[in-house]
């Protein structure tokens, strides 16, 4: 269960850290803080190297490989890539979402709910909950899963089981817990047998109860120190995501909706195949990661946040009763049209866990998931766009193929890229608050970790246990001189490296 805490595994990676300084730096998240002439943090730069070469990797391959190939792009939410690619290649065989066989559509939704459930459960219970339960300033030794397990035994176990349940849903639909198959162009390669369906039904009520409990817990934690939770790393932003035609929360398929910080609609029900007309990606010299923004608002104003906070903020309601009640409470707590608290990502993540559990139950009780009409086919097309709400936010896959079915062009916007600007801003916020003078400190480092983690970015550094996110922090003055450097390794050890 606790793969990432296995001592043996850790020991191996530690060894590598010692012998190979290059891999050590690459595995680290890197943050540069740029000061102005008054020693105030003017800009924060989160350097991300992971998303290079996607496109090259895919070009030249036949399109039907895409849903399986792209699962390997990101070890963290393979099913989301699988489904986004499948939605795109549906179009290459002439199938639009409304023409997908009903059973295939429902099976994909079931698969996706399983993925979001397991991903969110992993993030909250394994990575974030110690922080939230014990407070960020608490003793480092307490900030570990072990501590949660001993002091809140039921929560730890429930988190593990919720995640496991999500993985079982994935396994039943796609054949494997990770890197299964399932979705193919125009449909699915299998449906559920009655035995598989019954197996999943067995535990679903328990999962719903636990998910409800986790929402109650996070609400308690959040409201126990409202000023702190509402203000930490908080930025007022636009929000973007898919919604259903009637404005309900949607994870698998819908139109693009964007709202501004006041909750006013910037755009709604946009056909995602035309995303290029609305979203552009800015390139900056210091990072490979692009900065997407809404064309209508421009580069300065047009950046936005995606993910659970964006989705729960953006939607008019949630179509499962318990999650809807949780959403209403969540919205009410701030008294504002939109909740901007960055730590509220955690709260909304758990509201979605509840929604997933409720939705899984609905689907399991729907005979269509055992149907046999699974694949449809139409006229060949040369371009396809698939967009999905991945656990971390809106995920875009866009492909072009030639007459031989070979991919000639690919463009992907992953959720973490959409949150790029926001993460940099949140980091700047926290730095501005916790940096005093010209020296980097350990509390600053820890708080930066908490801010980055709230977004649940799909970065390898973010998969380490809490307090052990390998992070390299640099302070650069107005003249461009490196004046301080602090490195935290994946064993939690801190190393100062004065310039």
């Amino acid at each position, binding site marked *: 269960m606790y793969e990432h805490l296995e001592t043996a595994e850790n020991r191996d990676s530690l060894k590598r850290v010692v012998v190979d300084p290059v891999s050590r730096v690459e595995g680290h998240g890197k943050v540069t803080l740029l000061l102005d002439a008054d020693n105030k943090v003017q800009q924060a730069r989160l350097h991300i190297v992971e998303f290079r070469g996607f496109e090259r990797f895919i070009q030249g391959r036949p399109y039907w*490989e895409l849903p399986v190939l792209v699962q390997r792009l990101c070890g963290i939410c393979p099913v989301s890539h699988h489904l986004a690619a499948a939605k795109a290649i549906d179009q290459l065989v002439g199938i639009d979402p409304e023409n997908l066989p009903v059973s295939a559509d429902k099976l994909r939704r079931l698969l996706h709910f399983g993925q979001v459930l397991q991903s969110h459960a992993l993030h909250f219970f394994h990575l974030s909950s110690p922080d939230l339960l014990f407070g960020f300033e608490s003793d480092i030794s307490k900030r570990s899963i072990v501590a949660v397990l001993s002091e809140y035994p039921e929560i730890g176990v429930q988190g593990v089981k919720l995640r496991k349940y999500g993985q079982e849903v994935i396994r039943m639909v796609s054949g494997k817990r990770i890197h*299964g*198959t399932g979705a193919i162009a125009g449909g699915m390669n299998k449906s559920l047998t009655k035995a598989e369906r019954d197996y999943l039904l067995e535990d679903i009520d328990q999962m719903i109860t636990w998910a409800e409990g986790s929402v109650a817990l996070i609400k308690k934690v959040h409201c126990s120190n409202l000023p702190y939770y509402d203000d930490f790393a908080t930025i007022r932003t636009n929000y973007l995501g898919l919604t259903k035609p009637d404005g309900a929360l949607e994870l698998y398929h819908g139109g693009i909706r964007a709202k501004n910080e006041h909750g006013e609609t910037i755009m709604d029900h946009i056909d995602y195949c035309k995303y290029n007309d609305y979203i552009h990606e800015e390139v900056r010299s210091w990072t490979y990661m692009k900065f997407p923004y809404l064309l209508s608002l421009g580069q300065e104003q047009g950046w936005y946040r995606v993910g659970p906070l964006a989705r729960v903020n953006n939607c008019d309601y949630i179509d499962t009763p318990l999650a809807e009640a949780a959403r209403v409470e969540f919205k009410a707590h701030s008294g504002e049209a939109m909740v901007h608290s960055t730590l509220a990502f955690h709260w909304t993540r758990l509201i979605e866990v509840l929604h997933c559990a409720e939705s899984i139950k609905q689907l399991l009780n729907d005979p269509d998931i055992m149907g046999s009409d699974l694949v449809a086919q139409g006229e060949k097309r040369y371009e396809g766009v698939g967009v999905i709400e991945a656990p971390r936010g809106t995920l875009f896959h866009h492909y072009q193929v030639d007459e031989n079915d070979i991919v000639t062009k690919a463009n992907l916007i992953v959720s973490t890229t959409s949150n790029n600007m926001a993460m940099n801003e949140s980091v700047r916020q926290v730095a501005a608050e916790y940096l005093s003078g010209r020296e980097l400190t350990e509390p600053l480092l820890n708080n930066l970790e908490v801010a980055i983690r709230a977004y649940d970015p799909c970065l390898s550094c973010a998969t380490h246990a809490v307090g052990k996110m390998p992070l390299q922090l640099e302070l650069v003055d107005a003249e461009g001189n490196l004046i301080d450097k602090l490195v935290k390794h994946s064993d939690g050890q801190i190393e100062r490296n004065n310039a």
Partner: protein
Amino acid sequence: MSKTITIDGKVIPFEDGQTIMDAAMAAGVYIPHLCHQPEFTPHGSCKLCTVKVNGRNCSACTYPAMDGQEVLNETQELIDDRKRITQMLFVEGNHLCPGCEKTGNCQLQAVAYHLNMLDNHFPAFYPEREVDASHPEVMIDHNRCIFCTLCVRASHEKDGKDVFAISGRGIHKHLIVNAESGLLKDTDMAATDHAAHICPTGAILIKRTGYQVPIGERIYDHKEIDQVSLATEHLKHGE
């Protein structure tokens, strides 16, 4: 009184004209192989079927059975050799099982599992090889060709065509098609040809069919290659 050989001590009858492979398969004894299929003339190129006959290494698929031969098959030494040969096949091409549509149905992969091959052992060559997707129905991914010549033989012997040939030697060896353009679309290949369905790896594929068989229903999901091979091929050997 029929003639016999022994394989790992087991007495096995054979008829004149049979190879050691034929006799073994007919008797339900599995000898690992990749370039051999009972319906085609043996080629003896992959060397996976190497056995020891009276102390000497021989390819079971080409070596005739002779009365009184003592054949060793499942010795640790031979198993280790076969594993090395399989590892070489892997590193010489680009066999990236996780993304390959043949996974679960691939003989190369299944043999590797059977031999308990856990890594590549040798450094990968990462050769630059192409995909020929020019044909409307059939695709060649040269990255996965192991030069077993089964497609060459199938096209010639069964389909009455000569779509494929092997050209070059050693590291320059490659599969070519019989067309001036070098493209499959300019040959007389048809998706119904035997040659389109014979490839033991994922090098020759029927387009747009990948991943249609769900995990759990693929050939090697629940059975090892020896079981599958004996169940599907041994009758043909007995013919």
